[in-house]
């Protein structure tokens, strides 16, 4: 390293640290501002009717987004039912059986898939489900969210299961347990807490997705009537209402945004509490 005078080094240090502190302050400022704004504008739209009533046309007072809330829950449930088991099994494959070339390829693809553009997944599901079945559907929405969820869960499962000590596995096998029994009752059990947290976080992440639902579940002003019908959902409703010129719809959009932000923050905090709990 080149010799520099002490004062100069100290000055450079000071400047660099001020810049670091400043970027932290600016970043935090904007992020707090966003949360504050959502809370301030959203909380006034939240009332009993917001959760229990159907949407009304612009200009009419009252009404709520009960159908969108219900639809979002249904779509997320579909995604969970499809995405979680497959993801956990795929992660198990990578962690317990994954030593060959196939698993190396799958691991590589999973890692790149995690950041794949979600809107393209929507386009894909549109062309394999919406076009052949001739209609937008809640099921298609759920499947597109499941596709987005799959690599996330696969990766977390692999990471968590790899943390389980080899000694535990060997002990189980030495006692004569078959391999699958060892994985299910020893490895899964040892990684239970991490697995559950990872799954919850993955579900939370897809439940805030909008783009893949735009051309799959679409949206609807009615109560969800069937999986093969277009289904109301919170995120697309927020998008449509926020882009509309009507002020009462925009207020509803803020309410929805507040609801989603709160729900996701609470889920995230809870999952962190699970991790920290002992036993």
């Amino acid at each position, binding site marked *: 390293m080149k010799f520099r005078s002490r004062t100069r080094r100290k000055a450079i240090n000071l400047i660099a*640290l001020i810049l670091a502190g400043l970027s932290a302050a600016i970043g935090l400022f904007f992020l707090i501002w*966003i949360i504050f704004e959502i809370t301030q504008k959203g909380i006034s739209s939240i009332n009993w009717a917001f959760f229990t009533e159907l949407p009304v046309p612009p200009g009419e007072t009252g009404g709520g987004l009960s159908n969108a809330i219900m639809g979002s829950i249904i779509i997320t449930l579909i995604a969970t039912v499809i995405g979680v088991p497959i993801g956990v099994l795929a992660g198990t494959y990578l962690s317990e059986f994954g030593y060959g070339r196939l698993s190396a390829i*799958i691991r590589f693809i999973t890692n790149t898939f995690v950041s*794949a553009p979600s809107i393209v997944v929507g386009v894909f599901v549109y062309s394999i489900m919406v076009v052949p079945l001739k209609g937008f559907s809640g099921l298609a929405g759920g499947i597109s969210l499941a596709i987005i969820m799959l690599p996330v869960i696969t990766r977390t499962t692999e990471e968590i299961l790899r943390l389980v000590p080899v000694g535990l596995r060997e002990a189980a096998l030495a006692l004569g347990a078959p391999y699958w029994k060892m994985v299910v009752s020893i490895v899964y059990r040892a990684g239970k807490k991490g697995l559950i947290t990872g799954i919850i976080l993955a579900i939370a992440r897809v439940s805030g997705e*909008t783009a893949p639902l735009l051309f799959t579940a679409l949206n609807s002003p009615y109560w969800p009537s069937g999986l093969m019908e277009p289904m109301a959902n919170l995120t697309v409703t927020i998008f449509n209402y926020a882009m509309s010129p009507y002020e009462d719809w925009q207020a509803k959009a803020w309410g929805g*945004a507040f609801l989603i932000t709160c729900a996701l*923050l609470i889920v995230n905090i809870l999952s962190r509490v699970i991790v920290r709990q002992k036993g």
Partner: protein
Amino acid sequence: MADNNYKSSKNKSIFKKSKSEPITETIFRFLTRFSGSLILFLLVAMLISLSIEAMPSIKRFGLSFLISTEWDPVASNFGALTTIVGTVVSTGLAMLIAVPMAIGVAIFLTELAPMPLRSIFGTAIELLAAIPSIIYGMWGLFTLAPILADHVQPWLTEHFGFIPLFDGPPMGVGMFTAGIVLSLMILPFMASVIRDCFLMTPQVLKESAYGLGATTWEVVKDVVLPYSKRGVMGGIFLGLGRALGETMAVTFVIGNAHDMSISLFNPANTIASTLANEFTEASDPIYLSALIELGLVLFLITFIILGISEWWLASSAPGSKKKRG
């Protein structure tokens, strides 16, 4: 011979499967392998399905699709250049703002913040990364855009208007706003990844540098950053991937105009925002096909960039050469 056997089995499962395995064992192995292969299958299926649906547009416009700025649904003339440039510029702008800030935040969280606050700030950043992008978009449209239009953009035009980038109508929505909103969206995610990497630096290394009289900045620059280089690059690439494919944070604020202009203040478009706005309105088959080809282009761009970064990370991993040799 025995030595060879040992070597080859080392790379396989540590436990050999028995010859007379029960049916449950076979089923379990099959299920896990099937689920894993499904991911591979999905990727291939996505590529094939998107290519088939985009075929009419590929056949009709050929390579000129990628270099034409024309986007005329009425005349059925489509080119992707405007949206590709929009995607690249908005992502570039976001990375330009977010990368130094994320590193700054990580330095703050690992070296500067008072001890008791570190974990609180760290958790806060991680929580912010969980907020869905539509929230950032909405905030950008209703809160940030008016402020930029009234205060920031006129000021920039007045003082830096001689640079064509800052010379344009102060409308609030446009490339400039999209870049800012996008950077705010990826900031928490990148900052928390980079912080995790910084924390991996062994305390002993840092303490030795401090012991030699290094300043905090020198420790970060010469010890922490070189040590965590790979992880930091990985985090930056993940942020880049997210920014490229981001739809909602951009669609709200970019203005959605198929124009290409040098001014950052003009409304523009990205691939994702075009898809979000026009997909359900595309009645003409060739229009839909062109939109799907846009999706294919976006998919390929992100996959190639992420694939290269993934490959680089894997091949530059310490010990990866040993494994191969």
